[in-house]
């Protein structure tokens, strides 16, 4: 070590734990979960590489078009209405701002290469401002219009004490880089549901930056049912004590698809609660899902109650599910910090039991998968969406069976 380097080493005063109350002093270590850079500048992020932890599960060669700033095609169609198709109700304000003008760019900062690229490629943000009590969900339809690269930036901003639901639906074919900022006011109760029902060839990289207000509750649901590569990264923190975050995820991965969800929950204020529950079903050869759930409980967050869970159901052979919960707890005075993760296949005993009661195997599988997702779908809490989801899952299952059969025949 040179003298120069030695001079730059800062001395750190490491607090000594009191043996009678060993958790009174926060850990002196820096966070390892949340060391990622936060920046609007693309050059602050190296080009993705599978040697980097946050890209290790991603087939980066399939989404390399999103690694450098591009000129967006502007072909993606955006429609905003109430969920029944009527014009926006009172309390819902729709506007466009230049990217970088408030409220865009106010909720954290991009946290990886693709989110910085999205920020620098796009020109405008679509802003939904919500206030008061809005009695039916706002629907934002995002229809991809083909293979040309496009960027879309959405800001959802809810005022104090607001009660509202927002649904964002994606469909069509697309090469879409998407940035979403969600900020909720004090004592608001908001749900935001994002559905990805892309065509088989679509590619979608998404970045959600979420700020939950003091005493507010946010139910953030992500449903990904299709796309060649979909990678959504979510970054969250709290704006004050007693925030309540409920993150739900459902995914159904077809052969050859890569579906990736990364949640990052940061407890930075006291007495906040977070739940992250992601469940997925994978069907067939090359179906690949990734869930990485990060939770960080900072020294400033006593009374934290957090839990994260990921379950994967492998329907047919040849699928791969990566499931990685990471917890970093820097405060000993918490209510709970739990995690659970599993990858499993159909339970033969369950199927036999149902069959022995006269239920044919295909029907039995449907019951089991519906059971697997059922509770979670209910929890999304928007009946039109729940029904639609169950229909889609049923259709997928019906198709999965014929695919599985085709594969059996091929193998012979």
């Amino acid at each position, binding site marked *: 070590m040179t003298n120069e380097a030695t001079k730059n080493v800062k001395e750190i005063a490491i607090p000594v734990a009191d043996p009678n109350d060993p958790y009174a002093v926060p850990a002196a270590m820096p966070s390892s979960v949340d060391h990622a850079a936060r920046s609007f500048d693309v050059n602050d992020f190296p080009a993705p590489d599978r040697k980097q932890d946050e890209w290790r599960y991603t087939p980066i060669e399939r989404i390399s078009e999103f690694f450098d700033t591009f000129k967006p095609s502007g072909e993606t169609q955006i429609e905003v209405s109430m969920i029944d198709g009527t014009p926006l109700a009172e309390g819902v304000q729709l506007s466009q701002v230049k990217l970088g003008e408030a409220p865009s760019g106010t909720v954290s900062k991009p946290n990886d290469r693709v989110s910085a690229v999205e920020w620098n490629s796009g020109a405008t943000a679509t802003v939904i401002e919500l206030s008061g009590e809005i009695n039916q969900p706002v629907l934002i339809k995002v229809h991809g219009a083909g293979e040309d690269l496009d960027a879309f930036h959405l800001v959802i901003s809810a005022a104090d004490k607001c009660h509202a639901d927002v649904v964002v639906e994606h469909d069509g074919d697309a090469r879409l880089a998407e940035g979403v900022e969600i900020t909720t006011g004090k004592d608001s109760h908001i749900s935001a549901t994002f559905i990805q029902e892309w065509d088989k060839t679509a590619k979608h990289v998404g970045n959600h930056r979420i700020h939950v207000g003091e005493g507010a509750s946010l139910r953030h649901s992500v449903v990904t049912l299709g796309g060649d590569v979909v990678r959504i990264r979510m970054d969250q923190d709290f704006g004050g004590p007693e925030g309540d975050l409920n993150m739900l995820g459902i995914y159904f991965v077809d052969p050859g698809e890569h579906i990736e969800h990364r949640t990052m929950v940061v407890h930075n204020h006291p007495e906040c609660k977070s739940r992250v529950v992601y469940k997925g079903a994978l069907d067939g050869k090359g179906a690949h899902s990734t869930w990485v759930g990060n939770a960080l409980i900072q020294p400033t967050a006593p009374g934290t109650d957090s839990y994260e869970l990921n379950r994967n159901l492998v329907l047919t052979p040849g699928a791969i599910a990566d499931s990685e919960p990471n917890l970093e707890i820097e405060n000993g005075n918490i209510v709970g910090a739990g995690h659970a993760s599993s990858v499993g296949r159909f339970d033969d005993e369950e199927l*036999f*039991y*149902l069959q022995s*009661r*006269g*239920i044919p195997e295909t029907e039995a599988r449907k019951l089991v998968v*519906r059971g697997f997702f059922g509770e979670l779908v209910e929890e999304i809490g928007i009946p039109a969406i729940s029904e639609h989801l169950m229909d889609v899952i049923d259709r997928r299952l019906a198709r999965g069976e014929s695919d599985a059969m085709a594969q059996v025949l091929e193998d012979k």
Partner: protein
Amino acid sequence: MSTLEIKDLHVHVETKDGIKQILKGASLTVHSGETHAIMGPNGSGKSTLAYTLAGHPKYVVDSGEALLDGQDILKMTPDERAKAGLFLAMQYPVEVPGVSMTNFLRTAKTEIDGEAPGIRQWTKDLSAAMKRLKMDPKFATRSVNEGFSGGEKKRAEVLQLELLKPKFAILDETDSGLDVDALRIVSEGVNRAKEANQFGILMVTHYTRILKYIKPDIVHVFADGHFVKTGGPELADELEENGYDAYLPEGADSESALA
């Protein structure tokens, strides 16, 4: 009047130590309205017989037939066997998370009958049957067998027996894990269902105590993969006295434990 004829059934399972032959020529005929007790020492293959008849994929049939009114059920899938009129009350009913009892029972009933039961009549039948089995109505809304105690699971099996109305019911150690009160409730349920539907019963059991509640017409001793002795109810008393030692293969440990 229906008949279940099991003819010279040979069955094996694959274990990590290789193939294990379990049933070695089991033959039995049961008619509607008859109650057969199948008794035998642990490991004799009684439960294998029960699961083979129901079509559990673990058990591989080498030879033999099981004819239900002339049709070989061994060639059918498990659900087809159930539709043909076979019901297996399991020793360890399986939990199916996320599938409510109500939904499960209604689906099963619809499949067995070939048409959906009328909703009003069905609701009435279900709640009446649950009441008779002293089951808490909230069980209907819970997931299939999930979080049920051993006794509750057995009651739920008998509930299905009452509702699905099979031609033949196989009861696999239905008495195991039940206290005296639960045993009585479950046995009464079986008797009631039999009274109503006149099905034949194959009651697989290790112990004689359930025979005090469900009276067998015929008692079989099952040992080493086949039936070795058949008699009337008095055979059960003899087993109670002397145990299974006489029926165990040469040199086998006596682990008979008659209650």
